[in-house]
Every structure is written in C-alpha cells, then in structure tokens.
C-alpha cells in the first residue's frame, strides 16, 4: 500500500534520513523502531508531507484496484485528503480547542455529516472519557487522555493508513498496554498502521513486519517475531543481557 523508495530527507539542516526504503502492505501493522534521533519522525513527516524528501519517491496505493499516487511532492493537506492520517509525536492536540472540537477538526475534510456523527459516536464508545470531557479544553487533559484524543482525532478522517509517532512516549505502563490494544483494534477495523516506536518490545509484539532504523538508514527488517528474537535487536533495543 505504501512504498518508500530510497528517500533522503533533511530536517533542520541535518541529513536525517539517508536512502531509506520500506514498504507497508494493506492491512498490516508495520513498525519502525530505533533510538532517539535515528530518523523515525523524519520518515513519518516525509510520508505525511510535512517534510519533502530531497531524493527518492513515496508511492501510495489507496485501493487494490487504484493506481499509485506519488506522494513525494504533495502538500500535507492533499495527502490527508488521499486517506493518510498522521498522529504526531507528543500527541500535539489542540490545547485551545475542546475535546469534541479536536475530534471534529480531525474530520475537517469530510463532507458526510452523518458519517462524521457516526464515527464520533464510535470514538465515544471506544473512549468514553472523551465523551465525558467533551467540552473541556484540550490542554486540561492528562497525558493518557490526550493520547486517546490524538488517536481519535486521527481516526476521524476515516483514513486508510495511519502513521503513529511514538504513541507510548511518556505514558504509564498500564496506559501503554491500553494504547497498543487500541492499535490492534484499529488494524482490526481495516486500517493499515505504520508505527514508529522507541518501545521496541511492545511494538514488535503487535507488528506483522518491522524495520530497524539507525542514523537515518534501515539496518534490519523482517517479521515482528523475527526481529523480536534477533540477538542484535535484543541487545540494542530489548534490554537483553
């Protein structure tokens, strides 16, 4: 569904991503794991259009039958319209907007009022706290609540592919479990997931396939299970002796 071909991306003057390629298949959960500063966020930003690759291509096939769309030079707003949603790092919900407004703005591009209302109800069902605190400004929520809001907001555009940037960052372990359950539920609903994480253990646990990124390049790839049992990965990212 998504093919990243040998992209080079600069971020803030540094050559953050160097010749990176990866693919995401329809209906999969694919993880990109690596340390701080390895280039994970840069990669996601290149896909969602916040950054433009200097070289390389990013191709996207929204449906089985449709042709490939070249995302490389597209603007972020257009990429959203094509069905890709990016849940950014540190959640970044709109503090000045209420919870419900945050959710509604996720559906900004949609024209089907009934569909939006239904999706909103679904999200309320999945995250009852968001309905309870509907008119609370976003910046008054706790970290875990904000993460749920960010996920809900990303879902409101009814995307075909969601990019998650370190959803577990800064959350208590019990919340982290919940978040990863939600990610699996999202995939079960038919949405493809590209997940970027420092928490390698949990990410690999739910992933169909995964890639390891170091200093802007992919160093390893395989299925989730393969990488989880890989000795190097265990030593570097999974805390094994």
């Amino acid at each position, binding site marked *: 569904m998504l093919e990243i071909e040998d992209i080079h991306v600069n971020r803030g003057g540094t050559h953050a991503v160097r010749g990176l390629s990866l693919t995401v298949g329809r209906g999969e959960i694919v993880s990109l794991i690596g340390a701080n500063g390895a280039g994970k966020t840069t990669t996601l930003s290149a896909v*969602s*259009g*916040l950054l433009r690759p200097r070289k390389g291509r990013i191709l996207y096939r929204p449906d089985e039958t449709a042709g490939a769309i070249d995302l490389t030079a597209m*603007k*972020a*707003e257009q990429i*959203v*319209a094509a069905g890709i*949603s*990016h849940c*950014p790092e540190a959640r*970044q919900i*709109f*503090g*000045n*907007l209420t919870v419900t*407004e945050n959710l*509604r*703005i*996720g559906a*900004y*591009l949609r024209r089907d009022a009934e569909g939006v209302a239904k999706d909103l109800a679904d999200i309320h069902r999945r995250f009852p706290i968001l309905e309870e605190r509907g008119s609370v400004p976003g910046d008054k929520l706790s970290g875990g609540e904000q993460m749920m809001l960010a996920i809900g*907001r990303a879902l409101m*555009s009814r995307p075909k592919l969601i990019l998650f940037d370190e959803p577990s960052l800064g959350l208590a372990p019990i919340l982290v479990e919940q978040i990863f359950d939600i990610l699996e539920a999202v995939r079960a609903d038919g949405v493809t997931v590209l997940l970027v994480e420092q928490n390698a253990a949990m990410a690999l646990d739910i992933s169909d396939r995964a890639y390891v990124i170091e200093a802007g390049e992919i160093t390893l790839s395989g299925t989730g299970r393969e990488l989880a049992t890989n000795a190097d990965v265990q030593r570097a990212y999974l805390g094994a002796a």
Partner: protein
Amino acid sequence: MTFPYLLDQLVNGLILGSMYALVAIGFSMIYGIVRLINFAHGDILTIGAFAGLAAFASADLPFPVVILIVLVAGAVVGMVIERTTFRPMRGSPQVTGFIASLAVSIILENLAIMILSAQPRTFHIPAYLNTLVHLGSVSVRVIDLTIVVLAIVLMIALVTFVRFTRIGIAMRATAENYDVARLMGININRMIMLAFAIGSALAATAGLMWGAKYGQISPLMGALPGLKAFVAAVIGGVGSISGAVLGGYILGLAEVLFVGLLPPALSGYRNAFVFGALIIVLLVLPNGLLGRNQETRA
C-alpha cells in the same frame, strides 16, 4: 460634574471603545495566527475611511451598501499585505516581521499622502444619520447609535463564526499549530489569509465609523488610533478576540473619562496616559486580562 455630563462622557467612551474594539480584534486575530504585530493595521483604518467617503460621495448608496464596500476594501488590502509582506516573512524572527510591517505602514502612509494630499477632508454623511435621538437625558446622533450597534453586530457575528463554524475552528487550530493543522487537511495559507481579510475588514469599518463620528479624515488619521487599538488588544490579551473587545471598551472609556474628568490642564496628556498604560500592562500583566500564554508554537 453633573450626571448628564457623566452620561455624555460614558456614551462617548462607548463609541470610541467600539471603534477601538473593532481594530483591536483585527490586531489580535492577526497576531494570534502569525504571531506578528501588524503595524500597518492602523493604516487600513484610514483606507476604510476614504473608501467610505468615496462610496458616499459617488452615488446615493444606502448605508448598508457603503458598509459592505468598506468591508470588502479592507479585506482586499489586508489580503494583499499578507501575500506580499507577511507570507515571505513566515518563519523569520519576530523583529524582522515587525520591521517589515513598519515598512508597509510607511509605504501606505506615503502613498496616501501622494494620492490624496495631506489635507484633511470633511466626511459627509447623509442628513438622516445626523439627526438627534433622545434617550432620557442624553441626546445622541443616529450615527452614534449606528456605530455602537454595528460594532456589536459585527463582534457577535465574528465570535459565532470563530466558535461554532467549521472554518472558524480550523482558524483557531491553525493559530495554535501550523503543522498539525495541515495534518488535519487544513490549508493554512487560506486560513491565514482569511484572518487578515476579516481583521482588516473590521479595521476598515472602524475607519468608516471614525470619519462619520468626527467628520474629518486625513491620510495619517489611522496611525495613532491603530497604536492605541494595539494597546487595547494588549490590555485584553493579545490573541484573544474577547480580550480585544474588552480591552477596546476599557481603553475607550478610560481615555474619554481621563480627558473628561481630570482638569483640562492634564487632558493634553491623553496619549502619554495611553502609552504609559501600555507599558504598565506589559510589565504587570503580560498576557493581558483574558489572554493565554501564547508564546510557544510547535
């Protein structure tokens, strides 16, 4: 000090406050969305006044049409300024943008003097707007009432737009975080332009009101009111629309009462008073009365 005199001053304060509020809203909207002080904002007031004068003079247009023309003129000028000066500055340090907007102000003022000559002109309004209306012990002109009512109507319309409509929410989102707004599919260039258009339209309307109220306009008339409206926006909290409204009325009333109630010897200090108030507010209440700390932007 008689009661009718005090009432008279209050009414004048309300009228001045309405005008300051409209201009202050524009400042706050623009500041809120691009984090830059638009120094040329006061000059848009001037443009509105002259547009109004032209509209009145050219044909026997009904007042609502004149208002519409002025709104459109202001919006257009605002959008041009955004596109030519502010958009290329996006991402530059604060101070660079400020200097650029100073430059725009100088350009507009000199253009106005060149095209319109520095002489003040009388602002003619139709006779029916000049008729007196008696409310209890106070008499006001119809135009005075119209100014306050129009200001309130515009403010309510704006607040409704910003709070409840899809685009209004999108504007607020853009003001908070450009990148994430784009991730929602929002075209931030359009939102920014819209903010400039609305803010400038309101400032232009204030210019129309100013001309109608004081009967005289000149090419440099907007500079000082523009600065004072900035003070009002700061008092209320820059970036907050309701703050701008509050600040506008507080400043309008304070200025009129300052002049009206203190001995005449001190009334020449009205500008010093306003700017002194600015400095004090900036030091004591940096976020104004209703503002939030808006200095960070992702």
